[in-house]
């Protein structure tokens, strides 16, 4: 405990910590983010309705405006209900949960692929590097949203209809994850090539450390700042990409709604005056992405990795 306190003291005594405490944007964003994450994690406990279980849907309660009771059933809904009688608050909570989950796992996926390949590429150079970077070039020649759309679209073609919905979430994760690795790989490769020339690496090479130790103990910790910055920014980007895929109908199915799916179905009601079906998921999406971006911005300013 004491060590922990000391660590915290050290953290906030440091320049980064100080800048953090002095940045109302970063502080506020963290708060918002923590609340949203807590709400997403606690969705099954917090949500008045389990929207993943179709039995809990009551069609008669449909189209209730927010902060009012349904005329037929008398149930009160703070965010209103959609045309299926789905409580928009619950749907938003669950949607946030799915969106965050997808984005997080996708970021982890692209990060692990990208960082690994970037480390290998930058460290070994030569043919390995050339091969990896050519693959990256090919992938870069196709914009990320396309790759995601293609993976998503092709998987729909290939998968049997029965498993399509069940596997949709993995496909979306895969699609976003695979489309994002190049940024990490390129940045890490660049950073590794810089680090490799630095003398502490030469010193470590002189004692003949095994490659794995070299990479993990010496190089990786020194390139983690750009990784952290990219990861933060791409977390927001992944959330948006997922929403976009779902909006285009190439993402998550309505039975497993993410924020994008909710917006997609809500759009049809926006002009009909039932704004709340779209508004709450959209506002949550914006808040989530904005909070992460503000944090990412701050991180970028503070950590100041070059070339981002």
């Amino acid at each position, binding site marked *: 405990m004491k060590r922990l306190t000391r660590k915290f003291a050290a953290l906030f005594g440091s320049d980064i910590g100080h800048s953090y405490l002095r940045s109302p944007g970063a502080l506020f964003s963290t708060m918002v983010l923590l609340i949203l994450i807590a709400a997403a994690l606690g969705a099954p406990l917090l949500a008045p309705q389990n929207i993943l279980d179709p039995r809990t849907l009551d069609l008669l309660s449909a189209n209730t405006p927010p902060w009012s009771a349904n005329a037929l059933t008398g149930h009160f809904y703070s965010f209103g209900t959609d045309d299926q009688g789905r409580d928009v608050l619950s749907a938003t909570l669950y949607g946030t949960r799915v969106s965050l989950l997808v984005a997080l796992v996708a970021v982890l996926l692209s990060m692990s692929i990208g960082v690994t390949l970037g480390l290998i590429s930058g460290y070994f150079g030569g043919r390995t590097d050339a091969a990896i970077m*050519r693959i990256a*070039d*090919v992938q*870069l*020649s*196709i*914009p*990320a*949203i*396309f790759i995601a*759309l*293609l993976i*998503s*679209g*092709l998987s*729909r*073609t*290939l998968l049997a209809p029965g498993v399509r919905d069940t596997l949709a979430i993995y496909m979306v994760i895969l699609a976003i994850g695979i489309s994002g690795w190049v940024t990490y790989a390129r940045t890490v490769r660049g950073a590794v090539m810089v680090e490799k020339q630095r003398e502490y690496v030469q010193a470590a090479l002189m004692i003949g450390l095994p490659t794995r130790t070299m990479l993990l103990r010496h190089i990786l910790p020194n390139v983690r700042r750009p990784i952290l910055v990219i990861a933060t920014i791409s977390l*927001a980007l992944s959330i*948006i990409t997922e*929403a*976009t895929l779902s*909006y*285009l*109908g*190439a993402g998550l199915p309505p039975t497993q709604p993410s924020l*994008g799916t909710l*917006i997609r179905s809500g*759009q049809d009601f*926006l*002009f009909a005056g039932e704004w709340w079906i*779209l508004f709450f998921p*959209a506002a949550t*999406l*914006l808040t989530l*992405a*904005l909070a*992460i*971006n*503000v944090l990412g*911005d701050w991180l970028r300013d503070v950590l100041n990795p070059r070339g981002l």
Partner: protein
Amino acid sequence: MTGFFLRRLASVFPVMLVTAFLSFAAFHFIGDPLQNMLGQEASAQDRARLAAELGFDRPFYIQFLKFVGFALQGDFGISTRVGRPVLDLILERLPATLELALLSFFFAMSAGIALGVMTALRPSSALSRVSMTGSLIAVSLPNFLIGIGLIYVFSIKLGWLPSFGRGDTVKIGWWTTGLLTKSGWKAILLPAISLAAYQLTLILRLVRAEMLEVMHSDYIRFARARGLPKRLIYFSYALKNTMVPVVTVAGLQLGSIIAFAVVTETVFQWPGVGLLFINSIRYSDVPIMATYLLIVSFIFVAINMVVDCIYYLLDPRLRAVGGIK
């Protein structure tokens, strides 16, 4: 320059070849191409005949070479949804997408550079603060939400601008343009803005960051120390240096604008290739998907080549080395 260009061109080939291969593989292995062509009630003989005709019984690499050969002649097969040659379908819609993409690119670049320079030079002015906050919001908002918002405000509430389509178009050769009619301009405004929003913020932030960095560089310090006028320092000495990385990114952005046009075209029902692509995904129309992939990556690669050449013209250091590292 020629040498550089040729070398650059040579490096494009592997990329295009791999993309062609992916596209071929998609066409070939996803779904049943014979079934797609023959329809449901084809007999076994029909199948065998068509297979022989198309060379489906030949070794894999020969088929691939043939695919590349056909592709080079512009033959990408028949759409399984519409039943027309894929290339015709794409060419028909390409002008719409390119017009939209180029106009938003123009928006994004001009506004992005102007605002970027301003936020870098006058960080505390009201407009700078607004643009910085706005840019944060714009990167946090999905493209389609911006589109929906614009439609809601400008089409539904105010009724100023149309919410869908291209308006009246004019045919010039095989190209159709909406930029010669008033309704065409009205129609392109909202989609172009919504498509440009995200890219604009990226350019703005990049220009700002680069500008700030350049302003701290020794040669700007030296230029100031020599008493060069501010205007010259900001808009000539600093801006040109800022442009070097911006040009690279701008190339990528144009590609990504074409990609994101898929979303905008869906929101605004813009009759371009993006909408065609989305429909082909919905209808599992593999030939269109594969061809679009190929064409888009071709455009992308072409843009990158142009960018490299601009880069080359912009930065004398490259001309000395004769290449880009």
